[in-house]
């Protein structure tokens, strides 16, 4: 690290303290294969005196052996680290290089130019503040230039340097430079976000306009490349955003201490701050910011800390600690942009793992709404996404996650998809927005409870579960009861085989397994309706005790009323309103309850209704009285 800085020799302590204060700029170089990226980076390292004598000796030897510059140094050899790359002369993977000047420290990701390595470029871009787009002055704007511009800006890079390279090969002609700049600016109209685009005419090989302005381009008045990199303002944007800290680990050294460890993704935090833990939506106050070097008065984005809470609220790995006044949304369905990074194309409808922050959940990816043409940003038709393709689609998660749109927050709006079989990282994703706001329910649940929703309707949420043979009179009684309830101003809904099997459960048949699934779905729908405060009349044969028990277990305590419509088989068969018994007896319908499939009568139903010698209206009246007695409502 041969930094030519007199301070090193004079006062090493002062030098180190100054170095510690230098800001860090992360940037990427991207462009087409022969545009000279690696040469540029080699040049930057060389000119900032970052190359040691032993490295230089190796470089000189290698340059003569495999170099493309005759007896001159081939800077590209300094950077292309892998043996395969040196042989083929291409950069296949992202390589990170580090250098520092008197003003700044730099991490540069040298990203591959080949189209088949677009994903590697995106990798480099995801953590960069600026991008250097290499353009060969002889060739102008190419497909790759456009694609890389779009990927870089989609991933949130706002500072673009247009490094128009190999100016020495076009005689340092201003007209060539101007034409390329004009071309690019016309294209840049389609790029997302507010961009800072700075064109610089350079020659990486000759060193033109790299560290200082060169006499070869007297017509150029802008900064040298190094000047620009040293001075470009990187807004500490993350610190100004609302607090977000994904919990990495619950820190419990002993019974007296419970802290939440993680790295602050955005914002700042102080003891006394009100926070909300998501997705639970619980709020509490920060008591301490614990670190090994002592408690802190304040911590900001980028710091790794342990927080303690005033209240014992349920928070675990994967949850997000956020500013109570500006919490992220919580949702399980999103519109997203995906960049596909696997040779195996997207399989719409397939389940992948989704990792966002410190949380991994199961996700189903739907067919793309459309693709994005990386040359024009225009929408294209797409049924799937292939390697290196970008598209817009929707995803559904098994559990809701806290998030911000990517354009608001790079760390809480991003995710990766992982193949469940191969464990490969198959896509990167940017969240556009949620399709429904599970979030709002979660935190408003603190105010508007299910009890409040029932109270608003002046009733108690209840499931009336009518079970009995086909033709026993379940639906007739339920209909009669609903009319009475409606007339009384009660809020009700009927779920029966007919309305559910036509839509929600139309994929189910009548095998035992399908019947179980049928009941499981119906029970869950009924449960949601009770959460909404409704009186739900479920009219299903539901022949198995176990499934009725499952439905009962799903409901809140006391909200499940099992009504056995107890009509003997011979009576039901005699009625045979829909002619089904006849068909079953004839063998035209299989698995028919009571004929070739068993019916298990309830042992202790809340109510048993005898339909022999009693009309449906009388039965409804009987149930009504029972409900009033139970306190479901007042008559």
């Amino acid at each position, binding site marked *: *690290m*041969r*930094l030519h800085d007199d301070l*090193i*020799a004079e006062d*090493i302590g002062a*030098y*180190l303290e100054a*170095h*510690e204060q230098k800001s860090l700029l992360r940037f990427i170089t991207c462009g087409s294969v022969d545009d000279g990226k690696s040469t540029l980076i080699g040049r930057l390292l060389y000119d900032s005196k970052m190359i*040691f*004598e*032993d490295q230089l000796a190796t470089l000189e030897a290698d340059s003569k052996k495999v170099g493309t510059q005759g007896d001159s140094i081939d800077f590209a050899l300094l*950077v*292309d*680290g*892998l*043996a*395969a790359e*040196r042989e083929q002369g291409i950069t*296949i*993977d*992202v*390589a*990170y*290089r*580090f250098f*520092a000047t008197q003003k700044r420290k730099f*991490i540069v990701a040298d990203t591959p130019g080949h189209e088949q390595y677009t*994903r*590697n470029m*995106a*990798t480099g871009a*995801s*953590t960069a503040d600026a991008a250097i787009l290499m353009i060969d002055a002889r060739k102008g704007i190419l497909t790759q230039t456009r694609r890389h511009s779009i990927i870089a800006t989609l991933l949130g890079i706002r500072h673009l340097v247009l490094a128009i390279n190999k100016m020495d090969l076009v005689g340092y002609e201003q007209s060539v430079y101007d034409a390329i700049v004009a071309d690019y600016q016309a294209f840049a109209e389609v790029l997302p976000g507010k961009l800072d685009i700075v064109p610089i005419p350079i020659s990486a090989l000759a060193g033109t306009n790299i560290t200082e302005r060169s006499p070869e381009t007297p017509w150029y008045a802008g900064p040298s490349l190094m000047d620009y990199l040293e001075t470009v303002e990187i807004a500490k944007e993350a610190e100004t955003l609302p607090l977000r800290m994904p919990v990495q*680990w619950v*820190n419990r*050294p002993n019974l007296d201490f419970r*802290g939440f*460890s993680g*790295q602050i993704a955005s914002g700042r935090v102080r003891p006394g701050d009100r926070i909300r833990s998501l997705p639970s939506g619980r709020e509490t106050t920060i008591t301490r910011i*614990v*670190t*090994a070097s002592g408690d802190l008065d304040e911590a900001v984005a980028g710091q*790794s800390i*342990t927080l303690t809470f005033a209240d014992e609220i349920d928070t675990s790995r994967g949850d997000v600690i956020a500013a109570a006044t500006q919490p992220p949304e919580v949702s399980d369905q999103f519109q997203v942009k995906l960049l596909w*990074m696997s040779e195996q194309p997207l399989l719409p409808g397939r389940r992948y*793992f989704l*990792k*966002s922050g410190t949380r991994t959940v199961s996700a189903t990816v739907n067919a793309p709404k459309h693709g994005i043409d990386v040359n024009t940003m225009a929408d294209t038709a797409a049924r799937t996404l292939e390697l290196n393709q970008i598209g817009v689609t929707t995803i559904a998660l098994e559990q809701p996650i806290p998030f911000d749109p990517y354009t608001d927050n*790079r*760390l809480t709006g*991003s*995710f*990766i998809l*992982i193949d469940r079989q191969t*464990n*490969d*990282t198959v896509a*990167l994703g940017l969240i556009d927005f949620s399709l429904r706001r599970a979030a709002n329910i979660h935190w408003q649940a603190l105010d508007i409870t299910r009890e409040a929703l029932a109270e608003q309707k002046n009733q108690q949420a209840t499931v009336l579960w009518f079970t009995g043979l086909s033709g026993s009179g379940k639906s007739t009684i339920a209909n009669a009861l609903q009319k009475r309830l409606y007339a009384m101003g009660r809020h009700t809904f009927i779920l029966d085989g007919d309305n559910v099997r036509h839509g929600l459960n139309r994929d189910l048949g009548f095998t035992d397994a399908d019947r179980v699934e049928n009941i499981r779905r119906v029970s869950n729908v009924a449960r949601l309706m009770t959460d909404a405060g409704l009186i739900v009349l479920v009219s299903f044969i539901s022949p198995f005790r176990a499934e009725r028990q499952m439905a009962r277990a799903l409901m809140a305590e006391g909200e499940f009323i099992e009504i056995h419509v107890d009509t003997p088989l011979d009576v039901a068969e005699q009625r045979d309103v829909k002619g089904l018994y006849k068909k079953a007896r004839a063998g035209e319908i299989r698995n028919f309850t009571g004929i070739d499939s068993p019916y298990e009568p309830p042992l202790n139903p809340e109510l048993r209704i005898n339909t022999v010698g009693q009309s449906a209206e009388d039965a409804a009246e009987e149930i009504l009285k029972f409900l009033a007695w139970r306190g479901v409502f007042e008559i």
Partner: protein
Amino acid sequence: MLYSIGKDSAVMLHLAIKAFYPSRPPFPLLHVDTGWKFREMITFRDRKVKELGLELLVHINEDGVREGVGPFSHGSAYHTDVMKTAGLKQALDKYGFDAAFGGARRDEEKSRAKERIISVRTAGHRWDPKRQRPEIWNLYNTRLQKGESLRAFPLSNWTELDIWQYIRRENIELVPLYFAAPRPVVDWNGTMIMLDDDRVPPDIAVQATTKSVRFRTLGCYPLTGAVESTATTLDDVIQEILLTTTSERQGRAIDKDQAASMEKKKQEGYF
């Protein structure tokens, strides 16, 4: 956590202690000994681990010990392959670790510059540079197939200067070998090595002289080149490093064995 006793290991361990505070790091340290480490390193290791109250696992390749493998008798390449690379694989298999932290940095060497922070190794601990998972933002994919393991390199983006600066800021204790002192040294195959014990062949040992030297990296003593120096304080050492004209790994014999040697070693499972 792989613990090699060197300065990068010291920094990594310090970070782990800070990260888990007030708990202790919930994993043991693993030192793959080759039988040829500087004696001062071993003394330092044992004292440090005791002070911190951490669990230390030490593994040495017993097959190599039985064969009497050593750098003088077998050469640096074979010694490193048996005692370091094979020893490490043995240790990881023996304890069944599916993840191991290492202190490697991308600025050390060209093929390291392309290594991921989370690097997946096959059942045979091999590294395939063409099948690396993309690492986007700070989202690391740590899922493994049966038999696979991963190496995690938390210091990937640190430079040598960052390491020294952090040691200085956090007051991290180092093995005294990093600081200049009069030591018996001798030239062996162009590298100035220290006579750390009586296993140096007599014909070489006899030429030893005492010089004021220090070490930039620490490994097996016959394979680690000393540099002449009078830097006895941390600031002096950092100053010398910043003014030097050769790279850190220049003192390492193994990097020069063959072109692209580190990449090849890594593919074979070297850390």
